[in-house]
């Protein structure tokens, strides 16, 4: 069994981008029952369109239903599960017994256990296997050694997070957001209270300096662990980030796709090359999380909110005009003539060019592409695929 690369998608276009850039499957949230309340969640017609798109590429779509259900949330659950089965989604990802039991009773949907259950051992994964769960998403607190042990004993398939934001708490057990701002962390409303700034006191004595006690975690990045995880033959490698941009998704998924393919073809490049690619997307600082065991200060984020990407996403290629050898670009950030640009294509190709004259749709020459979503054109002698990402080399 080949290890799957699983991507997040906050909307239909992001999902298609993820699949085009190398994901084997995407996970999405519906309008109900999902944890990312602020993501642009999918209605039935969008799910249906995505499933068709993915299945045409021989890829998969999973739907998250991983909120913690209160009684008021149960309304419509049966109909929702039946509709997902009718649409043909490949699995649901859930953390609540009510969803597991209802899905088993009403449908033949494949069931994955969400990381919200914080599963960290093979005893529990095998219990869930007997309950009809095909795959478990391991807790991000599991080390690589523990994952090896779990994989060797587990009857379920294992899904392992390899990239993206991390809860500082064990997932699914935190109510910081609930208590501080009444937003339910386990029903999609997390206010990320763990990333706020605090003073630390011992008794009445102030220990910290000007609210510099921070619990924030660096984002997870597993480029150094990918070979081990592929050798273990875990079922799926998962990227976090349904709220992230198309450029982030394209960049991160493309990089891990390269790594997986290169390793399977025995032609791995130096690890720094892959890490350099990932840094082109907006990220917090990254670390290996718990993969090497207990975390240290190297896994914490102190005095730094995010890392500046080494490239700035400035445009999305909507089409290539073969006749005029021009790129038709949807502007995403400011760029101007003579800027050095890099283009990432869905087939992993990367080319560089210097921007020449920029023209708008009326063929007027512009001193800069400055308006979000404006359609502009620049010359490019090489044919470029639709949905390619254009970055400015900073």
């Amino acid at each position, binding site marked *: 069994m080949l290890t799957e690369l699983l991507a997040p998608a906050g909307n239909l276009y992001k999902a298609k981008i993820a699949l085009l850039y190398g994901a084997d499957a995407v996970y999405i949230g519906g309008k109900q029952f999902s944890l990312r*309340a602020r993501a642009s969640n999918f209605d039935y017609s969008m799910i249906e369109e995505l499933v068709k798109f993915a299945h045409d590429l021989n890829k998969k779509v999973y739907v998250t239903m991983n*909120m*913690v*259900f*209160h*009684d008021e949330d149960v309304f419509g659950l049966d109909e929702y599960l039946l509709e997902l089965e009718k649409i043909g989604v490949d699995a649901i990802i859930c953390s609540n*017994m*009510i969803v597991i*039991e209802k899905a088993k009773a009403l449908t033949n949907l494949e069931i994955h256990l969400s990381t919200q*259950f*914080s599963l*960290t*051992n*093979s*005893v*529990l994964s095998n*219990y869930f296997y007997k309950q009809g769960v095909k795959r478990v998403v391991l*807790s991000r*607190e599991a080390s690589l050694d*523990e994952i090896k042990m*779990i994989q060797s004993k587990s009857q379920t398939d294992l899904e392992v997070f390899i990239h993206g934001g991390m809860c*500082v*708490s*064990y997932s*699914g*057990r*935190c*109510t*910081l957001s*609930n*208590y501080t*701002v*009444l*937003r*339910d962390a386990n*029903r*999609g*409303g997390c*206010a990320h209270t*763990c990333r*706020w*700034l*605090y*003073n*630390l*006191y*011992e008794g009445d004595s102030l*220990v*910290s300096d000007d609210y510099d*006690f*921070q*619990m924030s975690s660096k984002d997870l990045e597993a480029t150094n662990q990918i070979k081990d995880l592929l050798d273990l033959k875990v079922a799926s490698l998962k990227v976090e980030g349904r709220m992230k941009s198309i450029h982030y998704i394209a960049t991160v998924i493309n990089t891990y796709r390269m790594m997986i393919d290169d390793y399977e073809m025995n032609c791995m490049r130096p690890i720094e090359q892959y890490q350099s690619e990932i840094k082109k997307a907006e990220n917090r600082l990254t670390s290996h999380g*718990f993969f090497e065991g*207990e*975390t*240290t*200060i190297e*896994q*914490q984020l*102190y005095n730094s909110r995010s890392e500046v990407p080494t490239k700035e996403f400035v445009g999305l290629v909507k089409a290539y005009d073969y006749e005029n050898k021009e790129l038709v670009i949807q502007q995403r950030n400011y760029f101007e003539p003579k800027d050095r640009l890099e283009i990432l294509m869905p087939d992993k190709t990367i080319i560089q060019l210097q921007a020449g004259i920029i023209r708008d749709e009326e063929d007027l020459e512009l001193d800069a592409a400055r308006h979000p979503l404006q359609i502009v054109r620049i010359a490019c002698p090489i044919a470029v695929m639709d949905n390619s990402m254009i970055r400015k080399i900073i």
Partner: protein
Amino acid sequence: MNIVARLKTKDEIQNMIDLGVNVVMLDTSVFTAKSIFPLNQTAFKEVFQLIHNHKINVYVYINKMIHETDIFELNAWMKFFKEIGIDGIVINDYTVYVIAKEYGLENKVIYQPGTMNTNTFDAMFLEDKIKGMTLSKEITLEEILTIVQSPSKIEYSLVGHGFIDMFYSKRQLITNYFIHKNKKNYKIKNNHQFVLEEKTRDSIYYPILEDNMGTHIFRDKQLQSFEELIQLKDYISDFFIERLFIDDVEYYDTIKAYQNTQVQQKFLDKYHSNFNSGFYYLPTEKTKGERHVD
């Protein structure tokens, strides 16, 4: 309704008897996070027998998240609990139920994950599997009443008083901060003196505790449930009184107040500034502004 109290020392057993506590909950040295009286098996057995001799039930608190490397030792403890005849096993991680079942102890298990027992279906699902379920700490009184009045035969419990935890991280957040700041000579592990103050919330202090299991953060005020128990007591089998950060005198006064409604007002007058009613009357929202306006 049983009053379940936590024990701090062996010498305190007589106090618990005198206070009329129905159940004493003991910590283990290995699988209890936020422990106040960690016991290895030898010590556990001694304390267990001392309490049992007075016909008071003993529960054990197994609230660590169970990792693969814990499984072997957890089996040994479960065998031990079977041998001594433990009355209840209060668990946070469902793994403990799976292992308890292998020892025929599933009817002793009380599932207390903190956040996950939030609906009537859970009660129906768990009723023929385990002894009891502790209702989640972030649901309203109305939601609690709906669940406990459902037809499930499971025993319901509440952690209804004390500083309630709201965060459990495997990370050593205080240790790491002190290393980052190059601060030395602090006692970090099991130091109950640390509190956090959030930048925009002056003078609100959240206790934070680091132990060998990780880091735990608690609400700034104690939960109290005197009024609510009037409606709930007929449905609740076990009422847990949390002990962390509370001095002994106040803890004993708390137990008395739940045993005797006549002294509740006197108790509140004495300790009036320390309490709130948690989420009993404050439903949480899924998106900002759904229920509450800033």
